[in-house]
């Protein structure tokens, strides 16, 4: 653990020290694996390293993913002392059987203890993860689970479907859509139920799988969905800056070698630096990729695709083109056009505008197109891939 953190800190140092002027961080997120198992002194080293090289904005959001049963009050207290101000608790379910079914090592007892620790330490910005579409799960089970979650009044709730990955034991046991997993229709009704119950309870459904009380959206994750740049450090971490997406090696040895190379590069001359870039980094995202990223990510958000930004970045023609591609989905009620006053543009108006010569003029008024909740969100893949199919870019 110690040597991994050392390597990690080396990576942070070498990356940030290469930058002419690294601006203070607005958000920091510890996730992937189980960061709550990290001894506080190591966390301290990481935070210090970051502080040294770029610092934090005064209101920076520092989140940590924590799994029930992996931390005690003392640990969390120390984390908070080190600056962590948002906790994302991987509860998954409030049912002992389902907890087992989704392959979690923690039990219901662990869940309640973890919740006690969090409330006991007055953490106000905390999030709760739930998993639906578990084997044998019924709509009644799911409603119970959602109500239990709402009763605990977290600032934020994330709701995911059970993901059956090939090559895992789940992949061997279960086939998506087949018994005992719920079928597509049932799984859709789980999604609808979550959306309606949580919204009723005052949560904004601000992203396909995320709900938050006003002011408690996860600012870090918003960076991803707004397609903004971010650093990534550590094993398998992904970064997006200088227009490049890059995934670090997923194996410890590969990662250590990579960091070694980074260090050599940072002290070396420019040409060697180029070589490193060509070796490790992907090329800059193409226009097509950037358009696809923008569409795919922004449509995950309740606010939707910002057309003004789209034309600013990719030209006015694309804006008109995309509006046309959206037409069938707007007509079918899966998407909505919104004007500058945040008012919904009726489908008829939208469609008439598109068919007229003056399309561009009327469309100037449409600022956002967003997917509807829950109908549009539920079919977002279908809609996004249709938009991709229609893209004028080769």
């Amino acid at each position, binding site marked *: 653990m110690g040597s991994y953190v050392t390597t990690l800190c080396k990576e942070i140092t070498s990356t940030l020290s290469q930058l002419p002027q690294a601006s203070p961080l607005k958000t920091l997120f510890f996730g992937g694996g189980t960061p709550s198992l990290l001894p506080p002194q190591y966390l301290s080293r990481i935070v210090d390293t970051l502080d040294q090289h770029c610092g934090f904005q005064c209101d920076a959001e520092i989140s940590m993913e924590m799994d029930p049963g992996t931390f005690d009050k003392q640990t969390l207290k120390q984390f908070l002392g080190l600056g962590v101000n948002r906790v994302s608790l991987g509860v998954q379910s409030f049912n002992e059987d389902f907890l087992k079914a989704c392959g979690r090592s923690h039990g219901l007892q662990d869940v309640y203890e973890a919740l006690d620790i969090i409330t006991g330490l007055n953490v106000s910005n905390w999030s709760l993860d739930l998993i639906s579409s578990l084997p044998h799960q019924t709509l009644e089970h799911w409603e119970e689970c959602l109500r239990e979650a709402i009763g605990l009044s977290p600032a934020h709730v994330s*709701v995911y479907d059970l993901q059956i990955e090939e090559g895992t034991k789940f992949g061997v046991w279960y086939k998506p859509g087949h018994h005992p997993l719920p079928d*597509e229709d049932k799984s859709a009704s789980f999604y609808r139920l979550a959306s309606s119950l949580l919204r009723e309870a005052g949560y904004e459904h601000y992203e*396909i*799988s995320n709900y938050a009380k006003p002011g408690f959206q996860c600012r870090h994750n918003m960076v991803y969905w707004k397609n903004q740049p971010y650093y990534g450090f550590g094993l398998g971490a992904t970064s997006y800056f200088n227009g490049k997406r890059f995934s670090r090696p997923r194996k410890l040895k590969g990662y250590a070698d990579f960091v070694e190379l980074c260090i050599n590069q940072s002290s070396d001359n420019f040409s060697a630096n180029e070589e490193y870039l060509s070796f490790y980094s992907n090329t800059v995202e193409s226009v097509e990729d950037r358009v696809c*990223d923008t569409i*795919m*990510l922004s449509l995950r958000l309740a606010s939707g695709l910002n057309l003004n930004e789209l034309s600013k970045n990719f030209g006015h023609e694309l804006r008109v083109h995309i509006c046309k591609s959206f037409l069938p989905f707007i007509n079918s009620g899966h998407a909505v056009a919104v004007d500058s006053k945040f008012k919904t543009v009726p489908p008829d108006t939208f469609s008439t505008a598109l068919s007229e010569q003056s399309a561009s003029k009327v469309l100037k008024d449409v600022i956002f197109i967003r997917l509807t909740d829950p109908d549009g969100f539920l*079919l977002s*893949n279908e809609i996004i891939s249709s938009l991709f*199919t229609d893209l004028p870019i080769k």
Partner: protein
Amino acid sequence: MDILARIQAASITAPCLAPQHHHKHLQQLCFPMSTGHHFSCFYMHQNHFPVAMPGHPCRIPSGSIRCQSGAVEAPEMQDVKFSKSMLSFDMGKDRLSKVPASQIRNFSIIAHIDHGKSTLADKLLQVTGTVSDREMKEQFLDNMDLERERGITIKLQAARMRYVAKDGEPYCLNLIDTPGHVDFSYEVVSRSLAACEGALLVVDASQGVEAQTLANVYLALENNLEIIPVLNKIDLPGADPERVRNEIEEIVGLDCSEAIFCSAKEGIGIQEILESIVAKVPPPKDTSMNPLRALIFDSYYDPYRGVIVYFRVVDGSIKIHDKIQFMASGKEYEVDELGVLSPGQMQVNELFAGEVGYLAASIRSVADARVGDTITSSANKAGMALSGYQEAVPMVFCGLFPVDADQFGELREALEKLQLNDAALKYEPESSSAMGFGFRCGFLGLLHMEIVQERLEREYGLNLITTAPSVVYRVQCADNTVVECSNPCELPEPGKRVWIEEPFVNIEMITPKEYIGTLMELAQERRGEFKEMKYITESRASVIYILPLAEMVGDFFDQLKSRSKGYASMEYSLSGYRKSDLVRLDILINGEPMDPLAAIVHKDKAFAVGRALTQKLKELIPRQMFKIPIQAAIGTRVIASESISAMRKDVLAKCYGGDISRKKKLLKKQAEGKKRMKSVGRVEVPQDAFMAVLRLEKEVV
């Protein structure tokens, strides 16, 4: 690419229980109405310049180099059994030298597929020194990939051999190969037979006579050919030459007392066959002094020399640089190149009555030098053409559409090129809302169709969707006109029709008696009308039915083969048109008719077909954002209906920083999938669904 690859495969392989049988059965198709054409001439260089000319440069337009190389090379003798044939090797070199007509023997080999024709032909070429062992590629006469894969001979070829008989005289033997199958083959076979005076009837001593063999024997008898029965494969443990000899005598009525027992593989009986040809096959009449008349029995297109015409000189003689005329097309040419096939092309200066050869005359398309046409001399025209020329009439039709609309131009070019070499192939542009632009193509029969499709995909790299094959219907309209129609979409409205006629065929199935019942059932299911049944031997029978051609263009042969465990064979001929109670069955997806899936079916079958098709489509069309009704309808009457419920959920739950590239890839893949779908109105139908339904249609319609 996966899906595309599957589509390719699907479009060429009809759905059958026993795919292996599928291609084999086809060779037994004989299609007497198919005429004047032959698409045997498809295969260009590789066929015509086989290994006899090592490295033959088909790119060298006029090839004097190639001509002799194979012939002069000293053959290597490995098989000591043929000590006698050492003699003929030396003679083999002289096979170009002229012999009097009395020493010419023109013969062909009639055999059922797998009965060993190719092996025997190879052996004859080897023993006469025409081809050395080293040059001998397995089965010389069918060296085209497609043929080999299917174990059939498509290409018709000829080989001139020199053989010094026991009487000490050198003879010129011309083997004219008949294609071992080809629906459709009737014309080719009949012209090839017409070019001969004799034929070897090769029958597998363990199997017996098959339907196709029989048909060709009758053809040979009609052409007054001397028939020499040969019982092949006598070395096999299951061989029963005596039984098969009796069978031939009983069925064909041929005297088999002098039938030759042979094993082409082991080289047994080869010498006897050669002697028998010399002794029994009559020499051609020496009519060299008459005006030129030569019968075209094959032709193919060579991109560098134009059409190469294979012919038999019946009267007169033909010289290089002669001005010649094709009597049916009326076109005139000058002979650029003249030669014999031995089996590669070898140039000569002149050919006389009785001889077999080839010529090139800068002919631009095989349509100008059709099989059955007569070549005469422009300067000294013959009074009358030889009989037997008929226009090619396509009997089976289907639509061919590129999967990728961008390939339409390529498809047109490919069809143009194929037509250069295949006078029987007809096509015209067709467009459909569901499939876009494509062509309606006419073929002589099913095998012809499959071969064309396969060549388009293999050689031209096209990815095609083919609609179910259909036949030509004749519609009597209320206004007293008769409309011929092969495309269901063009069928006149029910109100305008008085009746519809469809082509019927006479079908003869020869089968071991234990399968009689199941084959009769098959024929009945296919609207067959029983004609007669007779036992040809104690254990084998011939069953004759009349049934609609449309019922045969589907999977009839596959069924025949699979239901008889491969033992039955069949043969059919067109018997004419008859009225039938036919309707047009439309398939509607979300209310939109899917033109390519429309079918003309018998009224009694419409319901079952409609249900099968709608069910299949329901299985194959993925859920979409709205509910999709799928209906089968006759006119406005819906007879079967299914529906696909709307898609409920297709969403990626998690998409954070580390997921973006992967999720984008997934969505792009999904988008690619959409591009491969055809839009029918608002519904996206995967190509596979089309293919599967078309395949199903071939089965059930």
